[in-house]
């Protein structure tokens, strides 16, 4: 449950960088995503077409605070997004460095506290750091969104051990892998590890065929979720025969 909302598709899809509005619309449909991320910018010329896509998608909107580098900017952007999109969900990004796009955990916790107290349902873009995660929960967050790898890098899960620890440390908190996913196999791995959802954008938008890639991600995330629920076998260092030895014929001449 994500702030009381259950989602059957656990893929959350970004809406930026698509070759055209038509391809964006088709990609959303093909992905099966029920949540799409959006942003706020100075009014451009093609705003009306985008608003139509949002309304027609049937998806729940998750506005972001992308590009904000301070608590004040992020809080003001969140307030504007809540009014404009009519939702208290906010993907809280407070970026610490323009090159790495790494979250600033100190400002993130402070902004999360202010927004949670004001009734926002905060999805914080954070690292796999366990103490930052605890501070975000203390600040009022009920979902955490650790990065897989730096935004737009397509590196997948760069610190698998750290992410496994995070999953184990917060067994009852919805955890969404946000950013850095480049291939469906990486999204599927995150789901097999027990993460609750995957949020990605560039891997679909920049694919040669974004609509087909959106479908591939939708299927991978769904398969990973089923696999986790089915219970993966433990891995072994040595072989173990799967075909029974009992009843084996003696064929040595």
């Amino acid at each position, binding site marked *: 449950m994500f702030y009381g909302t259950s989602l059957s598709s656990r893929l959350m899809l970004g809406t930026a960088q698509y070759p055209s509005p038509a391809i964006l619309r088709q990609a959303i449909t093909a992905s099966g995503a029920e949540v799409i991320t959006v942003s706020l910018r*100075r009014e451009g010329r093609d705003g009306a077409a985008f608003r139509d896509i949002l309304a027609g998608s049937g998806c729940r909107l998750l506005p972001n605070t992308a590009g904000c580098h301070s608590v004040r900017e992020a809080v003001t952007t969140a307030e504007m997004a809540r009014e404009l999109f009519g939702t208290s969900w906010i993907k809280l990004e407070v970026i610490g460095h323009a090159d790495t796009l790494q979250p600033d955990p100190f400002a993130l916790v402070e902004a999360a506290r202010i927004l949670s107290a004001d009734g926002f349902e905060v999805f914080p873009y954070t690292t796999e750091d366990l103490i930052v995660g605890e501070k975000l929960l203390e600040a009022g967050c009920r979902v955490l969104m650790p990065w897989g790898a730096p935004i737009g890098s397509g590196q997948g899960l760069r610190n698998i051990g750290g992410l496994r620890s995070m999953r184990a440390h917060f067994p009852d908190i919805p955890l969404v892998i946000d950013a850095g996913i480049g291939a469906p196999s990486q999204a599927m791995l995150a789901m097999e590890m027990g993460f609750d959802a995957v949020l990605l954008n560039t891997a679909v938008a920049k694919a040669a065929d974004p609509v087909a890639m959106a479908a591939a991600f939708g299927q991978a995330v769904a398969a990973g979720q089923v696999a986790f629920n089915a219970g993966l076998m433990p891995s072994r260092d040595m072989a173990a025969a799967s075909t029974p030895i009992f009843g084996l014929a003696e064929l040595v001449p």
Partner: protein
Amino acid sequence: MRIDLNGEPLVTAATTLALLLDEQGFDAACVATALDGAFVPRGQRAAAVLSDGARVEVLAPMQGG
């Protein structure tokens, strides 16, 4: 008076944020506004008085990740 609208200098006759949106042809229902870095809710735009040098942001939905 002179203000900054979305980072561009502008000379306006509007005295409030609501009048400015009207003057500049924005669809008031489809934008969110901030004045000098602080959010101004829709219902408070008519009471938000502009002064010389005011920095106004008018934001709309945009693609995002």
